[in-house]
């Protein structure tokens, strides 16, 4: 037995011991964040969910969080530390923590893990995500109406299915109302880098875009659009209402609080099971921020009708006929996309130009 295995064993035992100790007293919930809680977007909303958990359970639950954790080996260290610190439930809130979450979950079988936006499950790892693409469809609808140059700029983060889904959903619904629309896409390769996001927005505006959609987390593109003066934006992950009523004309708001409260309750009750949750506008995990008066009344009305149809499930954001970029058929007339294809989406729909970086 090497020193390493002895240490690993001791660590494991310690983790179990502290886990058992916590059971009788307070439930401890940990959160791993990819950005700072003050990003005004993605991480901010996760932290609002954490605060809602604290408020709901009061003294029965203690929460801890670590912010700005890089998506890489460092994340494992943070998760290990949380698990050793007695956390009963750990939310890892970025796609890039997927493999790390699975690795650490295997070492701490008694700790429950919840990984956001990923697709790898285990006995003690649930995955959860929101159907952001429903919100993207609404954004695309408004964007298609609002653009005068017919060029829509899109600041994408990483080429992963979640982001590609958003681009496709926005494009399909923009083209539906404006057949001449063109998407210019910049891959920023970051979730959060205000300087780079501002730069990307400026470049898109210089190349003629008068609507900017973003899948990055800071409000920098909003500020860049505001400086340009005549460019429309949408809040991402958080309402970003401070940039309304113009340039920000609407937003996608992530509402994690009900889910976080429900899962924490499940751990307290001992009914926690590994699940795969993917909720949209209907259950309230995705919210659409107020559509401001900068949007013409009839466009606002049709956008709100679309939100309502998505809420009731009467309309699916990916309804055929839709072809793939290469022209091959994907969905027949009236057919809706299945979750499996959506979860692994790695292709553009017909009409989008450029390639997805590999």
């Amino acid at each position, binding site marked *: 037995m090497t020193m390493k295995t002895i240490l690993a064993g001791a660590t494991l035992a310690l983790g179990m011991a502290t886990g058992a100790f916590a059971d009788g007293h307070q439930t401890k919930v940990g959160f791993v964040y990819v950005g*700072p809680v*003050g990003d005004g977007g993605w991480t901010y909303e996760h932290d609002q969910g954490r605060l809602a958990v604290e408020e709901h359970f009061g003294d029965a639950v203690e929460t801890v969080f670590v912010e700005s954790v890089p998506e890489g080996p460092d994340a494992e260290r943070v998760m290990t530390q949380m698990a050793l610190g007695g956390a009963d439930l750990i939310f890892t809130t970025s796609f890039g923590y997927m493999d790390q979450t699975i690795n650490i979950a295997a070492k701490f079988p008694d700790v429950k893990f919840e990984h956001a936006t990923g697709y790898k499950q285990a006995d003690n790892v649930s995955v959860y995500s929101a159907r952001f693409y429903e919100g993207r469809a609404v954004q695309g609808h408004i964007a298609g109406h609002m653009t005068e140059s017919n060029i829509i700029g899109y600041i994408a983060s990483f080429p992963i299915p979640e982001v590609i889904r958003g681009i496709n959903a926005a494009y399909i619904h923009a083209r539906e109302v404006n057949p001449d629309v063109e998407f210019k896409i910049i891959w920023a390769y970051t979730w*959060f880098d*205000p*300087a780079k996001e501002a730069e990307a927005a400026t470049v898109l505006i*210089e*190349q003629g875009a008068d609507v900017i959609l973003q899948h990055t987390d800071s409000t920098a593109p909003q500020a860049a659009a505001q400086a340009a003066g005549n460019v429309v934006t949408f809040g991402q992950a958080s309402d970003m209402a401070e940039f309304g009523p113009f340039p920000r004309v609407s937003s996608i708001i992530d509402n994690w609080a009900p889910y976080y409260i429900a899962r924490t309750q499940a751990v307290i009750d001992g009914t926690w099971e590994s699940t795969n949750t993917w909720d949209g506008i209907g259950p309230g995990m995705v919210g659409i921020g107020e559509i401001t008066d900068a949007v013409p009344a009839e466009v606002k009305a049709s956008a709100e009708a679309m939100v309502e149809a998505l809420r009731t499930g009467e309309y699916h954001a990916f309804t055929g006929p839709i072809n793939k970029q290469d022209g091959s058929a994907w969905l027949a007339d009236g057919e809706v996309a299945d979750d499996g294809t959506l979860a692994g989406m790695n292709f553009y729909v017909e009409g989008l130009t*450029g*390639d997805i970086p590999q």
Partner: protein
Amino acid sequence: MDLTAINPILLLASLMVAATPILLAAIGELVVERSGVLNLGVEGMMITGAVCGFIVAVNTGSPWLGFIGAAIGGAILSLVFGLLTQLLLSNQVATGLALTLFGLGLSALMGQGYIGIKAPSFPDWHIPLLGDIPVIGPIIFQHDPMVYVGLIIVGATWTFLKYARAGLILRAVGENHEAAHALGYHVIRVRLLAIMFGGACAGLGGAYLSLVRVPQWTEGMTAGAGWIALAIVVFASWRPGRLLIGAYLFGGVTVLQLNLQAAGVSVPVEYLSMSPYLATIAVLVIMRAGRAPGSLGQSFHASR
């Protein structure tokens, strides 16, 4: 692919803007290193400058006062580094790294109440006559004033190091502090002043991000710009003229890769992103490390 979508005039103009924060931080670090001190805390001083400048600008409504506040904030933080390394003789590399971590935390704390607030606007100057020259006008003469302040600082530093007696003393201290001491120069004082100048410049660079480029406060907003500034100093082999080229190269690649992407060119962005660093390594290999100031990174105590 549609390269015609890229407007070369706007590209070059935004290159100058993109290069300004790293140029400011790098010129400060260049002076610090020429005096024989290696301060790896540029990132920490930049972000502290960014938050100090933002707080002052929001509270006074004046971006100019904001920049002054940023310079003072950066200089105060660098003074912590100066006292530790020059008077208490701590290790410069470790202290510099610690300064970065400290600056990131301190700025996050100071900026707590300033998230989501907008900075007072800082309009571009349209320089009369010069700004009206076709092509060159929009590229060079229609920017915000800080772009020119940055260029003036670089020019002044070059003149100072090359022609001023004080600049000669600073270089002497950096090349051989024992000899400079023997000649009667006050090594510690020169170095402390250089460190404070470096901190002030890094603060200005950070404030350029929070007041002009982005312009708002978000935690961790410098996102590694301080490290790029350090790389540029080495790339420039400690010369202000080359530093300008280096900053434009690094800034230009950032802007160019975004432009190429938006135009639909399928150049893998990774190659463009790594190219300035590859250039730095290539320059280091070609130039040899012998160009560095002789006493760089060494502690000095008069007793030895």
